[in-house]
């Protein structure tokens, strides 16, 4: 196969980026999309050019590290991770557009690599349970209804890749946040923090600068783990319950990325 790649090149987070055109010839249709980028990068390195920076780790679709927008669709034409997308999904002679996730809370670090630490701060705001230390309890000591266990597991498969944000016309991370809320909120271990969790995580989501969810559903069309849309309604349910229960003890959101950077700059400047 011979294809043409139009790839977003951006030297660093402050530089202005642009699309660059590369021809890649004689590739196998069995290659993964990332392997094509590897081949191109080897050639660029031999030519003394800067290789294209992109994220990847496990390359088996389970870690959530990779992800680019291909022809305007997060993770490309197959509903899977970019590493599990193969060139047989394209035709000989195709021109393929490759861009990084685009969202204000996901600044581009270089080329196709974005900073997804906003997700980490949403998790820190409530994506955990408190468990006593000591000997692990017996696995069957806490019964969980099968239906809840299945749904919690479906939500727990979220790998935090960020495709939902990249696909959302509002730049919202609601599917990601809702997956965590559903995962922990359906299990008995998640109950003590159930309501403070939803308030804290949604507050952090908003502080990070993600947009509001308007239930369009583009996120579920690109999610490689097929996180179901109903997780969002479950999050809303918990949020309404939490807000009607009220309470001044709700967690406050941590500062967002650029505020953290300013603090660091202050320390260095001092």
């Amino acid at each position, binding site marked *: 196969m011979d294809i043409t790649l*139009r790839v977003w090149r951006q030297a660093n987070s402050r530089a202005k980026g642009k699309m660059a055109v590369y021809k890649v010839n004689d590739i196998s249709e069995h290659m993964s999309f990332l392997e094509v980028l590897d081949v191109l990068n080897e050639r660029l390195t031999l030519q003394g050019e800067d290789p294209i920076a992109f994220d990847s780790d496990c390359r088996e679709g389970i870690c959530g590290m990779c992800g680019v927008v291909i022809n305007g669709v997060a993770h490309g034409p197959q509903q899977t991770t970019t590493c599990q997308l193969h060139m047989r999904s394209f035709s000989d002679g195709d021109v393929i557009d490759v861009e990084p996730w*685009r969202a204000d809370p996901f600044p581009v670090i270089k080329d196709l690599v974005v900073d997804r630490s906003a997700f980490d701060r949403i998790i820190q705001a409530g994506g955990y349970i408190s468990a006593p230390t000591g000997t692990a309890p017996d696995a069957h000591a806490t019964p969980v209804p099968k239906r809840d266990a299945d749904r919690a597991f479906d939500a727990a498969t979220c790998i935090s890749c960020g495709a939902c944000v990249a696909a959302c016309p509002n730049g919202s991370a609601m599917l990601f946040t809702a997956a965590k809320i559903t995962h922990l909120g359906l299990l008995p271990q998640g109950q003590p923090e159930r309501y403070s969790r939803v308030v804290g995580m949604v507050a952090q989501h908003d502080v990070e600068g993600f947009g509001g969810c308007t*239930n369009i559903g583009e996120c579920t069309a690109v999610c490689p783990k097929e996180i179901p849309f*109903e997780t969002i309604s479950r999050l809303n349910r918990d949020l309404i319950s939490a807000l009607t229960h009220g309470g001044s003890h709700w967690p406050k959101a941590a500062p967002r990325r650029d505020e953290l950077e300013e603090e660091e700059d202050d320390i260095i400047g001092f």
Partner: protein
Amino acid sequence: MAVTGLILIGYLLAHMYGNLKIFAGPEAFNAYAHHLRVLGEPLLPRTGALWILRAVLIVSVLAHMYAAFNLWSRAHNARGGTRRYYSNKTRTGVQRTYASYTLRWGGLVILLFVIYHLLHLTWNIIHPGGAAAEPYERVVNGFQIWSVVLAYTIAVIAVGFHVRHGVWSALTTLGANTSTLARQRLNIGAYAVAGVLTVGFLLPPFAILFGFVD
């Protein structure tokens, strides 16, 4: 957004029911319009119930517009400006409904139409087709002009799309969309409400335009 939207949909259903009274003749239609003004008497003063309804509607519309502006502005900032992806290949999204596209611009169309609509039929300030004292005549005079019917049709179709996504989205936001079955039912319900409103609002003007009602 969800709560105010559902209030406004409730109002639209009642409004549509009132419009269909036009098929019962001038007396029934005018009596209905008059009845709205004396509703609740003597417990409430004349037009008291109407003003309570109007207050709820005005607050709902303003809150709905504020929420819409807030969502738009957050989305605008989160996307990082206007041009998000350079690729033009998937501009219509992967699975989103056409209705979800029309929410923001459609909302503006509806806003402009509501202003015109109030000027015409409620406040009686502009009189396409000739002025009239009674509501029935005012409606019939107006809708004998094809351009008035056209403007009305565009607005009602915008309402239909708005309601299609609105019912679905409002009930999802209120937590009613927690299973595959619920999702199917919400979609069917949203199409049904949107369809009933669109057809119900379009029947009177077209009946007048084609001379079935005069």
